[in-house]
């Protein structure tokens, strides 16, 4: 342990840095590829705007997931929470845009706080708690919506949320960028941010150092829930409705984006801005598929989407595992 931890940890750090740069390079390359191959239509403001507006909700979910994963946890409930957030926001949209938005976020944060309580107070494993919550919250969302698709009250102005633009970009996109910038500052320059990384790096040591492990862990899940709720609000406002399958599989996209962005799945090392790169990269791939199909040269079924996402996760996970693994054949594995 003493002799091999050293080069291994250095390799992890180095590898993750390379991975982050790799993701950024891949993003740039794909954008250039898109511009060259699809020309005008791809590069127009419209496509970029709608792409970024669309990405916002995935970005928000992935941002929350980044912090959760950095503590060494995981939140599988985000998809269902987004659906709940959307449904609740739409139900409240009859009172106006702001109450709807706040209600959606609050609903998400409430679910997050239940996750957090179960994980910190009852000391249950995060993945199983949030898996149970994935099930239960979808049930709740369907129940609130009356098992139909929830439709926003007409004239509530709820749909406008996704139409608003500032400086040529949708509000949602701005919000995403601001959220990520704030996340990066929080991670680097606040106690809470450092504690998130410390807990993911060594939870026992953090406890002995007197860090408020339970409180930080709890807030991480509340944050994740709240952001998922907010993502649900945007989903609802984009479509004007939330259907029963809304948010399904989001947990995987978010995890994939986080991991692609070079955050260690076992916690302790992470980067907020690289998660943003991960989100943009993954979404861009699907955008390119749409463009490719529109050229009618070869058609790629939309079912490939989940396969590609899975393949991406596979590749990145294998890369990370190679970094973290010890050389020894019989060792203690995380």
């Amino acid at each position, binding site marked *: 342990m003493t002799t091999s931890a050293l080069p291994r940890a250095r390799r992890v750090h180095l590898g993750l840095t390379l991975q982050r740069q790799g993701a950024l390079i891949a993003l740039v390359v794909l954008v250039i590829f898109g511009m060259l191959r699809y020309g005008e239509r791809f590069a127009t403001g419209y496509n970029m705007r709608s792409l970024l507006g669309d990405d916002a909700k995935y970005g928000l979910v992935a941002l929350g997931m980044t912090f959760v994963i950095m503590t060494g946890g*995981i939140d599988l409930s985000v998809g269902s929470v987004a659906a709940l957030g959307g449904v609740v926001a739409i139900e409240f949209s009859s009172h106006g845009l702001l109450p709807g938005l706040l209600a959606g976020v609050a609903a998400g944060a409430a679910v997050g706080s239940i996750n957090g309580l*179960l994980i910190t107070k*009852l*000391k*249950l*494993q995060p*993945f*199983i*708690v949030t*898996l*149970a*919550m*994935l*099930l*239960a*919250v*979808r*049930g*709740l969302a*369907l*129940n609130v919506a009356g*098992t139909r698709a929830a439709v926003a009250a007409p004239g509530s102005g709820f749909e406008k949320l996704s139409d608003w633009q500032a400086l040529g970009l949708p509000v949602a996109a701005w919000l995403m960028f601001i959220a990520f910038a704030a996340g990066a500052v929080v991670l680097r320059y606040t106690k809470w941010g450092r504690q998130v990384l410390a807990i993911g790096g060594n939870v026992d040591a953090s406890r002995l150092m007197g860090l408020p492990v339970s409180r930080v862990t709890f807030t991480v899940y509340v944050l994740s829930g709240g952001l998922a709720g907010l993502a649900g609000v945007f989903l609802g406002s984009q479509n004007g409705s939330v259907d029963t399958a809304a948010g399904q*599989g989001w947990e*995987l996209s978010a*995890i994939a984006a986080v991991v692609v962005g070079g955050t260690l*799945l*076992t916690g302790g090392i992470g980067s907020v801005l690289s998660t943003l790169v991960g989100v943009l990269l993954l979404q861009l791939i699907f955008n390119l598929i749409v463009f490719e199909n529109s050229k009618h040269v070869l058609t790629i*079924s939309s*079912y*490939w*989407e*989940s*396969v590609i*996402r*899975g*393949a991406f*996760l*596979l590749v990145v*996970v*294998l890369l990370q*595992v*190679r970094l*973290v*693994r010890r050389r020894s054949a*019989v*060792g*203690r*594995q*995380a």
Partner: protein
Amino acid sequence: MQWTRWAQQYGALATLVVLFVYNAIDTPFFLTRQSLLFVLLRQAAPIAIVAVGMAIVIGTAGIDLSVGSVMAISGQVGATLVLHGHGTAVAIALAIGVAAACGAFNGTLVARFGVQPIIATLILFIAGRGIAQLITGGELQPLSNPGFQWVGLGRPAGIPAQIIIALVVAVLAWLVMRLTVFGRYVTSVGGNETASRLAGVPSGRVKVLAYVICATLAGLVGLIAVSANFASDANNTGQGMELDAIAAVAVAGTRLTGGRVTIWGAVIGAVMLKLLQNTLIAHGITKEVAQMIEGAVIVAALYLQRHEA
């Protein structure tokens, strides 16, 4: 904490008995052959089969989230082959073979590459459904082939075939876990993998085999589902099965952290959860609320397990 240990070991069984007695008194026609065999046990059988495989994987301190997707893949493969005029035996064998290959994929990621089980199986959980959808372009395939559909529709001696299959699977699994070296290895790898390897246990092979068994059983259930529905439906086959199976395992004594496996517990857990769900729905509680209660039951079961050091 004696009561928690008791609740953990016999809680599911006790709940099952209570629900059973309650229904016997309260629900008309509950104690009929039709209701017991063709509703309760027939519905519980597929969950029980998957739960048995899940219990073994969980025994190695793993988890398999991909069972639902594997069901969809196997159902698609089987139905497509039959519809293209291949023999029943070929269709079933290939479908289950593909499922086993999925298990080998999961197992290799976990054992060979050391990926956390939840992440490793998450990959097939999402990609697997896409693969299933790609096989038929997401279309529903109507199916009518009595030979092939025996697994879902057969009635030997008036008992639904899937109940018999579930029983056979459970008995076999129980014997394997109890009597064979592999069975011992599962719990020792789940209890302390490093120590097991240093005692010469081929932990990698044990884990791969566990995931293969789990996926194979999921594949079998995929065929049952497709047969019973008279159609293969890549979008819905096996949706949520991973949760049902994990819940069935968790409520009845298998530690989710590995090192202990109770096959009959998984079967009892499956029947109990199904009966609970049916009872709730029969009393006008919506399926969605029932889903929420199932989530709560899993958390409660975990809470009880927590007390074990």
